[in-house]
């Protein structure tokens, strides 16, 4: 997560999904927002799915953020999230389309303006 875990990972990513990299649904993108449905997790959930569900417990994260927090590749998190969605434990919201996002340059200027205001 921070700093410390920079070394060679001890547990390879394929173990999290049991070697599967094809998600059961293809709707998930890197910036899709995952939201935990709440409620107790069922017993016997695979460790990595339980970890993702625990991470989403009472909140939302994008696929990318979940991957970073779990220290897994995005492809693995997509498989895990798809499995959880299939079980109705997590809901996914498609990302905001790029066209609807404000201009990046504009945001930079806003930030600059805000910094100028603070001074």
């Amino acid at each position, binding site marked *: 997560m921070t700093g410390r875990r920079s070394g060679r990972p001890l547990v390879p*990513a394929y173990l999290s999904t049991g070697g599967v990299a094809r998600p059961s649904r293809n709707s998930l993108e890197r910036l899709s927002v995952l939201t935990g449905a709440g409620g107790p997790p069922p017993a016997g959930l695979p460790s990595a799915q339980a970890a993702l569900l625990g991470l989403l417990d009472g909140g939302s994260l994008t696929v990318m953020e979940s991957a970073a*927090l779990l*220290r897994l590749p995005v492809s693995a998190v997509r498989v895990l999230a798809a499995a959880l969605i299939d079980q109705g434990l997590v809901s996914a919201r498609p990302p905001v389309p790029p066209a609807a996002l404000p201009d990046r340059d504009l945001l930079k200027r806003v930030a600059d303006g805000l910094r100028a205001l603070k001074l």
Partner: protein
Amino acid sequence: MIEIPELAAGGLAAGTLSAFALGGGLLRARRARARQQAEIEALRARLDATGQELDRAAAAFTAEIEHLVTKRMPAEATRSAHTHVQVPGPLGPAGTGTDRVLEGLRNAIAHERKRVDAAARAGMRGTTREIQAGLYRLQDVLHGLQQRYDDPELAQTLFALDHENEQSLRRAQVAAVVCGAWVGLAREESHLVDAVTGGQARLVGYHRIQVHHHLEPGTALVSHAVEPVAIIVAELLDNALRHSSPDTAVVVNLERAHHGVTVTVDDAGVGMAPDERARAQRMVAGSEPILLSELGDPPRMGLAAIGQLTRQFDLTVDLSTPSPYGGVRAVLLVKNHLLSYIDPVLHPASASAAPTTRQQEEHEPQPDQVHLVPGGADGTRRRPASPEPAPGTRSPFEPAPTPAPAPARPAPADPVPEPVGEDGLPRRRRRAPAAAPADPRRPASPSRTPEESAAALGALQSATNAARRAAASEGSDPR
């Protein structure tokens, strides 16, 4: 005056006397000669007998030498490699002296075998070390590709390649360890369950392995013990998977013991005969030097590698009890001086590792508990950034949220201390859901008055407008 007849009589008497004397002497001489003759005969007979005896002894000795060369020495040479071979004894009492020859031969063979084995190990050590380094580089490339590309088809291939690479790495590493090399990788202090899960990932049948984690969260290994434990667990699991039916599970239990922590591997396989078990126990104890030539063809290196590692790192592996599942039970004991503590909140174990069955709340690391962990002077113990962990930083491995701690948790909007990483940067936390049930007892946003909010939004709006005007006046997009 002397008369003639007197003279004659005297002469005759003298003659008779001398004749008697001579006759007696002759008789004596003949008797002596006969005695000597008999003595000579006896001596000759004895000489003949001795000569025959000597011939027999020489023949026996020659036969003994022949026997030594054609039977006993080859048998002794074979016996140095296969201890069950019986070396035939000498043919008769003439061969008792040849035992020394065999003893000398035995020592010479043992010496030469050790020398040849050391040379073979040195050669193999050099090769495997380079292979291992190459495979680690390949692993880095594969991990980089996994992070960069998330196309499912490509990711599937990358996962398969990564798994193949892990298996090759395991074999190269085990061969290197058997040949007396270092494990080849310095790891940082890691969760014990991560080391076990890492060992699990290196095997073909890892789907069949069930890890049950009954330790306190944060039980970790000191850095130099991480890789050895992973290797030992991988080899024990490999044995378990190999000798059990593909539809049975291999069960791993991580439990606390008085002297440390045990990793128990149980399989429901065919088990081992008592002599096999005794041999395996000798191998994993690491008390006997390992000869490559004794490992069979293809060499069975797993147990030998475990033996090397247990000796080098003061670990204990026990194979002496049969498993209640009918197969083999292997117990790895990691002693307390190889254990450490990692804050499971700041540095959780990997997502694939089995969550602990213990309730985390009971074992939330208290600052004074952290001090009790031995060997904490090197700054490697991680204490939580805030004594009361923020609600967002619960470990992902916490079991089902129990209803009891819910009231103790502050409302999501509470100003809680921001968890700070070691690099001083605030850590990203998950967002509260839009439809989170608001706590009716608390205002939605107690830290900010409506006036402050209005001022902040106004500032944002005016800054946006200023920036838009500036962008419009410049006319062109600076990109």
